[in-house]
Each structure stands twice: as C-alpha cells, then as structure tokens.
C-alpha cells in the first residue's frame, strides 16, 4: 500500500485502493465479482452509471447499494450479496 492508498474490506479481505475510487471499480480491479445472481452466477457492473444494479452489494451493513456510484472510504466494509 502506497501513501496515497486506503484500505477497504470486501467479504473480510483487505484491499488497498486509491481514495475516491468507486467501490465497484475497486472490487473488479482485484478480480472480485460484485454480486452473485439469483441463479448463482458471479456478476459485475455492466453500465457503470447506476442503471443496471448489477454492482449492488451491502456497504457498511446497508444492503443493495450501487457500488459503481459509491466512492471508497477508509475502513469501508463491503459484503457481496
């Protein structure tokens, strides 16, 4: 982790990201899907602009957040749904 980076937690795993990075981008950069679909498929953001809801995850305990519209903050906890 460089000086400009912050740490967030995705399903318990710590990852280092630049502050201001969208959560969805951070997850994808580390090879993590954003969510699991109704039939069990891994999914990631499609539209990148809050329309498709494929990027939704629970953030700091609140479910169904669109992670492409959320910037990472230090200590943020994300749980894939």
């Amino acid at each position, binding site marked *: 982790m460089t000086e400009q980076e912050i740490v967030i937690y995705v399903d318990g795993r710590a990852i280092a990201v630049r502050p201001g*990075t*969208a959560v969805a*981008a951070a997850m994808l950069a580390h090879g993590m899907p954003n969510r699991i*679909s*109704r039939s069990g498929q891994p999914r990631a*953001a*499609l539209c*990148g602009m809050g329309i*498709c809801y494929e990027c939704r995850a629970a953030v700091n305990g609140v479910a169904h957040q669109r992670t492409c519209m959320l*910037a990472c903050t230090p200590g943020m906890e994300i749980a894939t749904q």
Partner: protein
Amino acid sequence: MSDIKATRDGTLQTTACDVLVIGAGPAGMCAATEAAASGARVLVIDENAGAGGQIWRETRAGAAHARSARARFGIRRFAASGARLQAQTRVLDAGDGWLTAWDEAAGGSILVRYRAIVLATGARELFLPFPGWTLPGVYGAGGLQALAKSGLPVKGLRVVVAGSGPLLLAVADYLQRAGANLQGVFEQASLRRMLPFTRHVMADPGKLLQGAGYGWSTRRSRLRTGCWPVAAHGAEVLEAVTMTDGKRRWTIACNALACGFHLVPNTELARLLGCDLHTLDAARALQTDPQACVEVDGWGRTTVEGVFCAGEPTGIAGLDAAEAAGTLAGSAAAAYAGFDSTSSTNTAPPVAQRRYARLLKQQERHKTFARALQRAFALRVELRQLCAPETIVCRCEDVTFAELHSLRGSREAKLQTRCGMGPCQGRVCGPATQVLFGWRPGSVRPPLAPAPVSALLAVPEATASR
C-alpha cells in the same frame, strides 16, 4: 431559498424553487445556468456525486486524463451561476408542481415545489443479450469508460469494443489513451449505412474536429464495420469473444468487452409527468422503438404545460445539441416561471434575441443530425437472433430467453417470470425485449428508483394534487 421542515422522524426536507432541473449533465447545466441568469431560483437534482453527467463524468484520482477544457468550462460556469446542486439524489415521484426525491448522502427525503421543470435526464446504453453477456468482464461501452474514470485500471487490459454508435469510437479513443490493449473496434452497422453519417459529420464544422480526432484513433484501433458479437466465453470471467461479420466467425482472447448498442433516451420521468413521446423516424412504430423520445418544440416545451425537456431524452443528438437545447429550455422555463428578462419575448435585448435565434436555427440542424444518427446506427436484424434458449435476458431476475420468447407482452412476462420486476425496474431488459420481441414498454409508476421505505412515508400531503 430552502425551508427545512422535518416530519415525524426528521428526514424530510421541503424546498421550493422557480425552475427545477433534473440532471446535471451538459443539457441540465446549460438550462440551469440560463435560467439562473434571469434571476430565477434554480435547483438541480442529480444522482451522481457531482455535475457533469455521463459524458463529463468526474475522473477519480489515478484514472486516465482529466476532463476536457470544454467540460471544465461548462462545470465552472454552472458552479458560478447561482443555481443550487442537490447531488446524490434520485427522483422518486413527481406531479404538477411537485417532486419527491431521496437524498442518499443525507439519508432523507426531499420534497421540491417548482414552477417550471426541465428534464435533462440524458440517455443510457442499449444492451442486447447474447450468450455469455452476463460474465464479469463484459461491460457496456460507456460502462467500461465510466468505470475506468471511476478508478478501474485499464492499462494493459486486452479489450474488445463492440456494439454500435459513435460512443464506441469515443470509448476506444479513451481506452487507448489510458493504455489499454485494444483488440479491435467492431460496429454492427455496415459501412454503407454509416457513410451518409460520416458525410454528415464532415458537413458540420463543429463535428469535423471531433470526427478528425476519432478518425485518427480509429485508424490506430482498426475500426471494422458490419461486425457484431455472437458470444462471450469464460468460466468465471470473460476470456474471449467470438465476433462475426455475417459470414465468418473468429474468436479474440480478451479480458474485457466494452459492448453497447447505441443509446436510448431516459424518458421515465417525462412519461410519469404525462409528456407525449414520438419517434424521430416516421417509419418506426412508437411502441417498438427503444429510441422513442419526448416530443418538444424548439424551446423544449413538452406536451405538458410547465414541463420542459432538453438533450438526449428529446432525441439522441450529441453534446452540441444538448447544450443548445438546454440553454433554450432554461430560458423558456424561466420565462414560464415569470422571469423573462432574457427570454425569447420581444422585451429581450436584441443581443439575446439573436443568440436564441441562432440556437433555434441550430436545433433544426441537430434534429436532422439526430435522424441521420438513428438511421446510420439502426440495429440489424441479426442482433435479435443472438440468444440461445438459456441466454439470460432479465439480469436482475435471471429470466432466460426460453422463458420469454413465447409470451405475449411485457406485462405477461412481468407476472409470469418476473422479468422487469427487479431493481433496475426494466431499464436494461425493457429496451432489450422491445428489440427482441417488439414488446411495448410497461407504464411508468413511482417510485422511479428503489428507495428506502422511509423515503416513501414522508410526503403525503404534498402529493394530494395528483
């Protein structure tokens, strides 16, 4: 300007304005700036964290090159205009003179009373299903660009850009400059269809510069026309894409597919407010055209009094059209709200009148451009036949093509399969099923976006007028 009033649990903010603008993209910012210049109290609502819309999306630290000079100017001008921006706020419901929204940042509802409203809600990409399109690594074209601007590293990423529309070139250009390893740019429209469009671009001096910029990079990125994706492959993530030109097929190894089939206008709020839609092309039927747009006159007046619309929702026509339309609509909205010092009326100073006359004349050219755009990038019939029976069409609810293709319409699909009942509220699968099956989109109902239950509780007395 705003009077804060709390309800039972303190989460409601009530505010009033003269001109309410929905969307802080180029059209919205121009409308707001223009309306504010006349002295009207202007409030702008946008879902994103800052102004700029999609085309001028803020780039995060570490992302590739910053916004253009034009973007910076537009945003600075807006910031200095006196209009107030209510960011991270999504519209839930609206009626005559009122609108409710959910402020994500504050965690509370907002009720806005307005005299005039300008809808500058922009457009979204049209996504069409094909085998493998749900794999992580398959993005929209604008989608990948948006994510890259939001901090997704793309340097060295093997990416294929496919689908349709001028957006592909813009995205390819951006990705290349960001250091991505572009494996090709594939436009489904044939060269023959696109040629009149390129001539059109050449005819417009403003666009010529843009066109030249694209031309340069497309030579580098090897744009190919008449090609489209037939399948995306991979176990858990995208590993390869198979393309076709209608005769041959070939497979390209890649980590990312940026694929979108041009744009559809965001007309939900306009429809909720009762505005009429129309098609730009008389040959298209209103109910099967995903690009059906809000009917407006040169000043952006819709078929509902006090409701104005500007930019992509009135027809996909690009940045110049959006800014011009925004300016005109902002002026007309301010005039409607009683602030007509700079409006089109005879009392306006000659300089202003000439300016508006020029913009109105430009609108004609923009309309022609919009039609040319639509014709050039019309979707070929093969795109309706890409699905395998198990291809997912509704991504929110994992409804497959097999479950849908014999149903009679979108409502039947909703009830029997839940297609369109997920959180995207049919914004992805709606246009797709319109193209695939010719289903008329369902009616628009509030809430326009998912919102916490408490957001719905706050504003009963305001909405009694509907």
